[in-house]
């Protein structure tokens, strides 16, 4: 295999480099020319709806699939033509894929045996890995004798014990129930930080992505739509898709008032909102724009504030910690407007049928050309 002519991914801060990856399945293009650098030690999430290409991307890094075009490098070495078993990765699967015919200890030691380490060394590292995931004492159990959470830990220990260059997690929490999921997420994050292991994490759950990641790559239709820190993605979505996929959002009809370089001022009723100017390139002052406002950035207007719209409370949803109010208002939106009010007082204060005024609780938002 002759090495490609372009300079190698020598940057020591980059653990995984994807360069111009294209992957087709028959007629369907699953990935269009995707490039992505995963930094050493970071937890990078690939987030997107099903069919966006995130799992394909993970499978390409793992070597289960080969790209039609582009190069993949792990820890500075080109691996595009390397089979999975020579890539020095660790991976956990949606249903864990624990070997049902092996004990917990054999499962965890599998990768070390494949690397032909000597027995005492294997035993030591297996014990340490099981200690790390708090499963000491369960060495001789079979996977089917474990709970879902325990199986998840075995899968994690098995992937980590080989000290992989990169840890690949395919929807690791999707098979767990809600309570356990939260605890496992915290634990995974702690272990990941402690070992400083580069991690690529695939999920379709945006709240999971926001809470766990160092950076998120939001994907749709085989492309990365935005790459950034969780608050970037949430607060400054790059396009309409990202804005509506990550978190709940209200789309309100507003008017572009003026642009000052990189920012713009948008008018919603008699309120003024500062938005990034980039997405509004080409729109003239006075043009109609779509203002994306998060539900927690709206509040019920009191008498001395600026009311941007009026409406009638159509539904209340108690959400332990906050209340979601669905307000029927035809002034700026074609659908109901969602408000997120902290605490639970909203349940009694604005019962269904109440006429309310809506105000903006922020001066920053994003807007896109319709």
């Amino acid at each position, binding site marked *: *295999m002759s090495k490609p002519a372009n300079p190698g991914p020598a940057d020591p801060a980059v653990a995984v480099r994807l360069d111009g990856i294209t992957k087709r399945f028959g007629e369907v293009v699953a990935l269009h020319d995707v490039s992505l650098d995963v930094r050493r030690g970071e937890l990078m999430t690939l987030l997107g709806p099903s069919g966006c290409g995130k799992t394909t991307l993970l499978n390409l890094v793992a070597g289960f699939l080969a790209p039609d075009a582009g190069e993949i490098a792990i820890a500075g070495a080109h691996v595009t*033509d*390397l*089979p999975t078993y*020579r890539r020095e990765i660790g991976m956990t699967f949606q249903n864990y894929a624990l070997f049902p015919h092996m004990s917990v200890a054999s499962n965890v030691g599998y990768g070390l045996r494949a690397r032909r380490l000597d027995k005492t060394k294997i035993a030591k590292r297996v014990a340490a890995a099981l200690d790390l995931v708090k499963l000491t004492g369960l060495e001789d159990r079979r996977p089917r004798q474990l709970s879902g959470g325990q199986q998840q830990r075995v899968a994690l220990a098995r992937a980590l014990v080989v000290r992989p260059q990169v840890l690949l997690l395919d929807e690791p929490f999707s098979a767990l129930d809600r309570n356990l999921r939260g605890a496992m997420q915290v634990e995974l994050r702690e272990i990941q930080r402690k070992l400083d292991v580069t991690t690529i994490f695939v999920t379709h759950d945006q709240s999971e992505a926001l809470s766990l990641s160092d950076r998120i790559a939001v994907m749709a239709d085989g492309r990365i739509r935005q790459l950034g820190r969780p608050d970037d993605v949430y607060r400054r979505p790059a396009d309409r898709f990202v804005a509506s996929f990550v978190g709940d959002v209200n789309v309100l009809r507003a008017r572009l008032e003026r642009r000052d370089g990189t920012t713009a001022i948008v008018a919603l009723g008699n309120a003024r909102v500062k938005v990034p100017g980039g997405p509004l390139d080409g729109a003239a002052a006075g043009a109609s724009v779509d203002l994306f406002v998060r539900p927690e950035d709206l509040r019920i207007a009191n008498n001395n504030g600026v009311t941007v719209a009026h409406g009638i409370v159509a539904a209340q949803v108690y959400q332990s910690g906050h209340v979601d109010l669905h307000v029927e208002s035809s002034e700026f939106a074609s659908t109901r407007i969602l408000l997120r009010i902290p605490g639970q007082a909203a349940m009694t204060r604005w019962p269904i049928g109440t006429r309310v005024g809506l105000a903006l609780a922020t001066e920053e938002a994003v807007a896109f050309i319709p």
Partner: protein
Amino acid sequence: MSRLSSNRWLRLLGALAVAAILGFLLLPAIVAALAAFNGRAILSFPPETWSLRWFAKALAYEDFRAGFRNGLIVTAWASVLALVVGAAFAFVLDRYDFRFKRTLETVLLSPLVIAHFTVGLGFLILAAQLGVARGFAVVIACHVVLVLPFVVRSVYVSLRNLDRRFELAAASLGAPPARVLATITLPLLLPGLVSGWLFAAILSFNEFTASLFVTVQRTQTLPVAMYNYVREYADPSMAAISVIYIVATAALLTFATLFLGLGKVLDVEQAR
């Protein structure tokens, strides 16, 4: 890269092995076909002259004709009875627990491991002891027992793959059990039922060892007639009839594969 090419060698080696095994499976059929179209009475490879005379002779041979007729009678009865009995049993096997369920299952599936000559001898002696003449009834009863396991298995697999929620939905809409069975379960089971019946029919039509014991000249089925022919004559008529057999069976199974999802019925489709 070197590892990748060693994978390629492994793959090539595997493909060659599979091709060789398929060749082994096909070899007798191909050779029989060569022999069947051979013009002379003595085998020679490759044949020196070609002819259809052995087909004409085989089709005109009275024992074969009678055997074919008898075989159809036995197969028609045995396959339908086995289908009804087997499908009903597969249903209770899948749905219910009852006393002696395991015992009954073991007994009914035991012809898979009991030698056919033992079953044949058993029905022969039983008929003699009961004073029943060795007519079609004995042959049919013997065949039903022998092919039953195959029907049970294919219907049972289909039942396992059936989503019970369709039935629950029908019941929730007010359909009584008989209606659920007739309008939901049976239609969804159709491929399994047809394959089960097809298995039973082909196996019954071709059953030999037990038939050798329980048939008499009057009820002799085609395989028994062919066996007697091979023992007495060496001309390629037998090759001709074998070719007809092989072609007909392969055609039926191709049909089953393409239209009934034979792979699913045999449970050999990759789960994920």
